């Protein structure tokens, strides 16, 4: 049994783009769909908090007004609670694009890199090892996006994939660009559609299988 923790924001939680008061069902949101595709040998733990950023708290945000939004501040408690963890999937960075943070794409990538470094201090993998880490680059925001504090965030979001490749990849984690999973089609809302959840789940499940199959081959090759 492999334990996979999906640490993310409202797009991991499954916020319904047509009704912000509704959460998509387990079968609709990407971690649930991924769990179905991976089957009973994998235990998928959903840890998506709406409005979560990589490293900044957000006292301005109204969703859960008195909750800490910093993914950095809550990461240790989350990982230790779910340990031992075989794979940590991080999909964060979208909320860091909000204008009030004045973040450049490199700042967002560095924030995600910090989460990986914290993870490696904790030894929350199997038998005290480190968990594997898969970073999903968040989707590009629509060019029309000018509300919710995301005014002109589209341009920065376009540069996330390349910046994550430069800054996050060298830390020895896997990277999955969600725009590849979406065939390059930019979502027309901040929150993913049902079809986009499905496409992301397929790509994530495929990558997870690759990661663990490769691991098994390694074991066979170097007994």
């Amino acid at each position, binding site marked *: 049994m492999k334990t996979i923790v999906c640490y993310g924001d409202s797009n991991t939680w499954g916020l319904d783009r047509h009704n912000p*008061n509704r959460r998509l069902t*387990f079968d609709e949101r990407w971690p649930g769909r991924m769990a179905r595709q991976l089957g009973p040998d994998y*235990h998928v733990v959903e840890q998506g908090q709406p409005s979560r950023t990589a490293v900044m708290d957000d006292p301005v945000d109204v969703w859960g007004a008195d909750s800490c939004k910093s993914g950095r*501040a809550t990461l*240790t*408690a989350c990982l*230790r609670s779910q340990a031992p963890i075989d794979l940590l999937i991080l999909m964060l960075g979208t909320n860091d694009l909000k204008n009030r943070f004045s973040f450049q794409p490199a700042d967002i990538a560095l924030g995600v890199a910090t989460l990986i470094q914290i993870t490696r201090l*904790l030894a929350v993998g199997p038998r005290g090892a480190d968990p594997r880490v898969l970073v999903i680059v968040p989707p590009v925001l629509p060019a029309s996006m000018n509300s919710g504090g995301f005014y002109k965030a589209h341009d920065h979001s376009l540069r996330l994939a390349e910046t994550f490749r430069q800054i996050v990849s060298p830390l020895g984690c896997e990277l999955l660009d969600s725009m590849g999973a979406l065939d390059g089609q930019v979502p027309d809302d901040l929150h993913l559609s049902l079809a986009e959840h499905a496409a992301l789940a397929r790509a994530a499940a495929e990558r997870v299988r690759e990661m663990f199959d490769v691991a098994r081959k390694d074991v066979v090759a170097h007994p």
Partner: protein
Amino acid sequence: MKTIVCYGDSNTWGYDPRTGRRFDRDTRWPGVLAAELGPDYQVIEEGLSGRTTVWNDPVESLGDGSEKNGKFYLKPCLDTHAPIDLLIIMLGTNDLKTRFSLSAHDIARGAGTLVQIAYRSGAGHDWKKPPVLLIAPTPVHPEAVSLQAWQGSYDKSRRFAEEFGYVAKENKAELLDAGAVISTSTIDRIHLEAPEHAKLGRAVAARVRQIID
């Protein structure tokens, strides 16, 4: 599908006093609860070793100790799992540590604060408050007091049922006295052995059916 969140410490995480490792899912009490309740219920495990009700613990932390503070993490945790049909809180054992110098009364008050945070969270359905089942932790083993970190813990923990009872009543939360169902291991004097997890899981399941049905 009903969602139940189990918010606790190492005795919810499933720390095995024999091995120091985590019991498997079917052995720890939230897993037993899930098996008892069946497929219409989703039981979410949120147990963290060393978690207190409302206190940071920098002694057992690489950071400032805030990750051990049950008050700090509760709201993000509830946001993460909303909408929730029932929140189960079993905390207070770590508050008994010598370094916190707390009375049973203060510990139960800390748990009461968590209940109030949950009520204000809007993490139930339609942004209403989720029902809360407060579990008074089972007393530690009488010999725990010989451990430096747990001086005086036994006598205080024997008052949990009464003090948590007051707090549950005040806050109109449901109460379960774990000490009436299970006892603490003689091995490390703090944690629960596998048969105790099974008994607790079954007792909680019976209670959950009363609350939710």
